[in-house]
Structures are given as C-alpha cells and as structure tokens.
C-alpha cells in the first residue's frame, strides 16, 4: 500500500511575475515502511519537495495523497500529525528557552493528547535519552543529543511518516552513525515511512530502498539501493555524485593512468 503519492507535483516561491518554480513536475510513490531518498546539490529542489510534503511550502500544484487521503493546501491537525519533519541543524530546531520536557509537551497540548508524562517518557526512551533530560535546556546538550530530541519531538505525535532533511550532515561521523542506527531501529519498530534528503549518497544508500537523483527541480533518475551498491546507475550525473561521496578524484592521476596504457 502506498503511503505517499505525488502526482505532477510542482512547487514555486513568490507570486506573479517574480514566481520561481523550484520543483518542476515530479511524480513518485512511496510504499508503507519504505525509505525514499532525495539526492542532489544545493538548490536542486530536494528540500522544497520535503517542505511541500510537510505542509511548510503551500504554493504547490498537482496532487498529493498521504496515507490514502488527498491533501489540500490547508491541512487539518490530524493531517499535520501524519508526517513530521526533522531538521538539519539541531542547534536551530529546538526552542532555546524551553526545557526538553516543555518542547515535547508542546505537540501533546496542541493535539489535546492524554497521558502526557507517560508519552514523554516513552519517546525519550525510544530515542535513547535518559529520562531526566526532560529538565534540561538545549544548550546543555550536545549536537547528537539535540538531534535525538528533535527526532523525539517528531515521534511524539505518533506520525506515519518522518521527513528527514539532512538529519546527520551537521554531526560528527561517530554521532552520524548513532543517529543512522537509531533511525533504522525506529523504522523497524514503529513501522515508519521515511523520506530522506541528503547530499551524501553513501548515507542515502545506507538508509534508503530507492532514491531519486535531482537536478534543477526535476528527477534525472530513480535508482534502487541495489543499483547504487552494484554501481549500475544509468545517469552520468548520478555517477558524479557517487564519486563525490567517495572523496576527491585527482585529475592528474586520472590523466596519468589514462596516459599509461597508451
């Protein structure tokens, strides 16, 4: 069963003459429990698609279906709770003057949920944070701990979809591994569907089943994880991105080795 269906989705910023079409007519479907990746360089429109799915960018055309329900530009509370966004920057995404407990209580109050303290304790345990962290302020936590809090806040409304916007690119390698493992565990345990935006194909290949490679607002290729790992992708741009995630390719060494056989 498909959890997300986007059909001829186009997103723009601004109005009238100055309107800028950032995403041009993309269509995709994401199955329940699947992780779909969006990869590309800055300005390619990957975060904009995520914003449209989250309800952040309201200027879109086409059709969007989430959990079998067609979504309009304005969403109800329960529609908003179906998917939650995890931001890139763990330092800017948590209110600096709220304790962690307050941050987690906020969505429960908005949605009038019961058993609030119980839910907060459960979600803190789920993301691997000690319970007394709820009394702390964000500035008393490390980047990795804050990202766990951000994930906890996204999970507390029991959404079906997590929209992950470069969730590990601001973190150190060792912390990135912890967060990626956590995301894998949560997906399995909570039956979640993910959309992961990243510029790093290695991270995407680690987490995603399928990935759309984007360039200037459109998909150039939708590749499976298998294709990435077996290096059987079709589009040359995908190859460039894959090389990039492996590191630097010396032009000199390349030309040297090319010159050698001749």
């Amino acid at each position, binding site marked *: 069963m498909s959890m997300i269906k986007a059909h001829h989705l186009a997103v723009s910023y601004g109005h009238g003459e100055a309107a800028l079409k950032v995403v041009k007519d993309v269509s995709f479907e994401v199955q329940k429990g699947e992780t779909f990746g969006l990869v590309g360089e800055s300005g390619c429109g990957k975060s904009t698609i995520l914003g449209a799915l989250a309800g952040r960018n309201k200027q879109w055309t086409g059709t969007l279906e989430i959990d079998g329900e067609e979504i309009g530009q304005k969403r109800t509370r329960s529609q908003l709770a179906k998917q939650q966004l995890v931001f890139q920057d763990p330092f800017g995404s948590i209110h600096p003057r709220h304790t962690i407990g307050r941050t987690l209580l906020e969505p429960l109050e908005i949605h009038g949920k019961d058993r609030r303290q119980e839910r907060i304790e459960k979600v803190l345990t789920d993301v691997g944070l000690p319970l007394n962290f709820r009394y702390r302020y964000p500035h008393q936590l490390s980047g990795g701990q804050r990202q766990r809090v951000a994930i906890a806040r996204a999970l507390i409304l029991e959404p079906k979809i997590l929209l992950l916007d470069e969730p590990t690119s601001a973190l150190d390698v060792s912390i990135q591994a912890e967060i990626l493992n956590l995301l894998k565990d949560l997906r399995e345990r909570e039956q979640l569907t993910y959309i992961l935006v990243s510029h790093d194909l290695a991270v995407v*290949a680690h987490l995603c089943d399928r990935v759309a490679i984007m360039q200037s607002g459109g998909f150039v290729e939708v590749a499976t994880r298998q294709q990435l790992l077996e290096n059987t992708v079709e589009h040359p741009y995908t190859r460039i991105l894959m090389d990039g995630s492996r590191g630097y390719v010396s032009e*000199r060494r390349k030309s040297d080795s090319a010159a050698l056989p001749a």
Partner: protein
Amino acid sequence: MANTSDTILTVESMSVEFPTLSGVTTAVRDVSFSVGREKIGIIGESGSGKSTTGRAIMRLQPPQAIVEASRMQFEDIDLLTATEEEMRAIRGRRIAMILQDPKYSLNPVMTVGEQISETVILHERATPKEARSRTLAMLERVNIRDPERVFDLYPHEVSGGMGQRIMISMMLIAQPSLIIADEPTSALDVTVRQQVLSILDDLVVERNIGLIFISHDLNLVRSFCDRVIIMYAGRVVETIAAADLDQAQHPYTRGLLNALPSLDNPKDRLEVLRRDPAWLEN
C-alpha cells in the same frame, strides 16, 4: 619530487590552553608534527583541536589563549619568538589560510578584483593597469570563466565555490610556501568541491609547497592528502600515510572508519564509536 624531504614547518610538543571561569581548558595537548612539500591532512571531530592547531601556527589564536611549544619553526623563522610585526609579514604571504567561508576572509566593501589587484601591486610593484590584467589572468588560472564580470563583483555576490577560487588566486600571486586550509570545501557541493580541490592540488604540486588540510571528512582527506594526522581531544593519536589509512592501528581511527557509511562496503548497522578513557592518557 626530489624536494619531498624538505621540511617547511616543524611543530614540537605544542599545547594550547584557554583559561575559563572553571579552570584551564586544554584545547591542544603536546602535538608534534612536521610538514614537508606535501599535502597533510588533519582530521578530527568537533572539539578535537584541529582548527585551534591551524590557528596557533599562524599565531591567530584568541588573545586569552596560551600557546606553548618546545619548537615551532617555519623555514627560517622561529614562530615562538617572532614579533607581531614579523608575523604580519608572514601571514598571507608566506603562510596563507583558506577558511570554510571565504566571505570572512574578503573585504566586504571592495570588489574581488580590487582585492586581488591590491595583492598584485603589493607583491609585484605593478601599476594599477598591469595589476588589472594580471588579476584577470589569475582569475582565469583558477578556472573562472568570465573574469571580466567577476572582477567587479563584491564578495557577497559570489558563490562559495567562486569565493574559494578567488582566495586561491590570491595565493597564486603571493606565492606562500605553506597553505593552511580549514574545511575549505565543507560548504560546497560535490561537483564544485571537486573543481576547487583540483585547483588547490595543482597549486601545491606545481609550486612544490606544503598544505595543511583540516577537515572532518575522512574520505576526502584520504583521497586528497598524502599523509593524515588524526586528532582526538586535543591530542595526535596517529599519523599515517593516506594510502594506508585502512591499516590504521589506533582504535579511534578504526572506530571512525567503521562508523562511516560506504557505497563500496555496505553494512546493515554502522559501528558505534566507543570512547576509551585510555585514549586521553599519553
């Protein structure tokens, strides 16, 4: 390649300490290394002291910081005893620095062309007219397609990749013998990063100079540098040839390598780094 053994910079037991309200914090502890005519990478996580090390070499540490070392020799200059005036003559000319965001290194109220020309006039005693044509040539050298247009842009009008190229073009003129690059490509897209690194690579190899490349990106340092220094909590835990990184011995280096998701070596679960307090003792 004959010059590879020439040592440009020697640092022996350098420590950097910051006095804080709750006592003294040691950001860098007993670090020793030397840089020859090579690309040497310093890798570490945030708080490992890698950037502090780079700044301490330039003597650009914050005023309250205390830098101590048994030796800090840059070519014929003793960096420990050099006066501030001597340091000013060294910075930018004999040791150049590239930072993550070129905007902070460029003057925001001067066009990039004017800034490069100024360097030309300073170093080559050229007339303003000659300086302009030299500048345009330099911009072309760093693969800027439309140098005439870029000449008149202000720093805020250029992209990150373009900014780093402009920084490199200034170095082409100043001809430093050591470049310290602190995360120069972290804010750049993959394709732009490749171009900037390739220009930097050419510069270092052609001029036969030294490069200290500070980064958190293991794959990048491994593929770009000749040697790698791995730092953890202000200490050098290991120094190893980039090609041999996979054979690294120190558990921290191994932990970092295993924590990295890889296209060529996929794993279901990434290894989580277990920090051993013993790493802090040496």
